[in-house]
């Protein structure tokens, strides 16, 4: 202390640095903060508005809205349990198809394809993601469904002893009831999987491409085959991306509307038989019934929308946490 007094140096404490920003900077910072705040408020209000519109529904039906299966506004009986089931059925089927295909395609592009055409393949996958969903829906309805019902029949014929693959009636009879095999959750799931394959694939491929060269070479130098290298280096490294991309796809699959709307014939029975016609999903229900709705019906549809909002928000937050936590996420920071 004495020393500092002598030399006139202030004591060894951090000083507060105060920078005076030029006015242009203050305007700039306030401006972009304002825009960001506006966007935040906009998105925050989506949840709030849906919740606000749902209040009458919850007042009227209470928890039975979630547990009741049928949707009969005329009879004043409204519930979404069968619809929730259908939503998850379609999403899970879509995921079971999309996950292996997206993973395989991502590995093919990043590890197996010739380097010359790799960027072309990446563009094609991105292009596939850009194809409007109404076109996938049309493809699924007009081209896929006639083929897919044959596959459905084959599955129910040979795997019908598993309850979810059973279909009412006898699939082996000469005049099998074709109409029972169309408009099923299975076919909708295939259609939706097409839309999430490119999304999941490009997330996975992006992570695989960052697997460190040093570890790749280490595996090869030990005498590994390409698959051995992929298995020991690329897949463990890309685990976060694999999970994250899949969850992102799941989020999309839960909310997909128009493609499902092509396939669906709305039916509110609790239907575990995925190959059999008749199911519903939240988004298809909303889109289908919205046009001709009365006021209380509208409120019920908004509540269904709120449920979808909460589910997708949970799934996507989970995806973000998983991607962020994995080692692969860290490498993306430039």
């Amino acid at each position, binding site marked *: 202390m004495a020393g500092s007094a002598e030399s006139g140096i202030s004591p060894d404490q951090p000083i507060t640095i105060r920078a005076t920003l030029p006015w242009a900077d203050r305007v700039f910072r306030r401006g972009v903060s304002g825009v960001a705040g506006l966007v935040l408020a906009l998105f925050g209000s989506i949840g709030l508005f849906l919740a606000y519109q749902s209040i009458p529904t919850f007042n009227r039906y209470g928890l039975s809205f979630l547990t009741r299966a049928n949707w009969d506004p005329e009879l004043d009986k409204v519930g979404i349990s069968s619809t929730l089931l259908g939503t998850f059925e379609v999403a899970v089927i879509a995921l079971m198809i999309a996950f292996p295909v997206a993973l395989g395609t991502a590995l093919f592009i990043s590890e197996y394809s010739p380097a010359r055409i790799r960027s072309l393949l990446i563009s094609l996958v991105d292009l596939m993601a850009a194809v409007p969903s109404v076109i996938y829906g049309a493809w699924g309805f007009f081209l896929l469904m006639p083929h897919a019902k044959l596959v459905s029949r084959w599955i129910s014929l040979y795997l019908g002893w598993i309850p979810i693959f059973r279909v009412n009636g006898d699939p082996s009879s000469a005049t099998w009831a074709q109409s029972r095999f169309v408009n099923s959750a299975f076919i909708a799931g295939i259609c939706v999987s097409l839309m999430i394959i490119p999304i999941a694939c490009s997330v996975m491929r992006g992570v695989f491409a960052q697997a460190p060269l040093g570890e790749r070479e280490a595996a090869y130098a030990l005498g590994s085959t390409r698959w051995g290298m992929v298995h*020991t280096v690329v897949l463990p490294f890309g685990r976060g991306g694999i999970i994250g991309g899949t969850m992102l796809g799941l989020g999309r699959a839960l909310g997909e509307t128009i493609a499902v709307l092509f396939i669906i014939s709305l039916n509110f029975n609790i239907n575990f038989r995925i190959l059999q016609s008749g199911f519903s999903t939240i988004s298809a229900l909303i889109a289908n019934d919205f046009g001709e709705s009365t006021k209380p019906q509208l409120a019920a549809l908004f509540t269904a929308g709120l449920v979808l909002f909460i589910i997708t928000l949970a799934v996507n937050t989970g995806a973000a946490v998983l991607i962020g936590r994995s080692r692969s996420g860290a490498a993306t920071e430039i």
Partner: protein
Amino acid sequence: MQAAQPTSDFDVPALAPDFGPEVLHPKGAHLDAVAVSAWFGTNKVLERVSLSMSPGTVTALIGPSGCGKSTFLRILNRMHEMVPIAKLAGQVRLDGKDIYAPGQRLTETRKRIGMVFQKPNPFPTMSIGENVTAGLKLTGVRLGKSDRDALIERSLSRAGLWTEVKDRLGNAGGALSGGQQQRLCIARSLAVDPDVLLMDEPCSALDPTSTFRVEQTIAELRSEVTVVIVTHNMQQAARVSQQCAFFLAAQGTPGGIVEAGPTTKIFSAPEDPRTEDYVNGRFG
């Protein structure tokens, strides 16, 4: 001749017992490079390099950056062709058999000729023990539990790491220090029982103490495998090697060997004035 006698610059003698030159019945394989040339695209980086590497010998490849040492080393176990535009000519004979001959299995070659890289690269998702046996897993060799444990102990001991990690074999390989990681990588290479071990500047990312341990390890390995090491460190080359090859690439021309021979001769009485300039630190 006094001028060509700079050995006193290299402070080695303390290590004499470990680093001695005498190996009576060396294991390992003969590795002969015959007229090896290499290209990246149209750019030729190596011009007809020939070198013999014998069992019981540590061969050091020295020379300034960009002279093709690392490329040459990677040619020796077919890692060169990992680069899509890489090409090469000539032969590399492992005990007389050309590893580039048609019908030679790439994975088999790499298994017999192990490699340790500049930067330690243990597999981060595997434990220490799993890292050691990774090569066996990758090449489809199955071992019983007791054999596996014995192999882990033997490999880690040969790499001089056993006593340091024997109580934590289940820990992640990435949690070790840099020097330990590099010795873990050496142990991993040794576990597949290679005939030749290639080392690409294995100590350049390590501190002096770790470097010393790795050099000790190399000296102990000499009797078991043929070692080829690329190094920028003259003292290291003088300490660990019995044979030395000096690579040089003049401006705009492919690299090649200027002089090769016994290490003592390269350092004490080189024939080429460029070698003398380099080992005495006048350039490079």
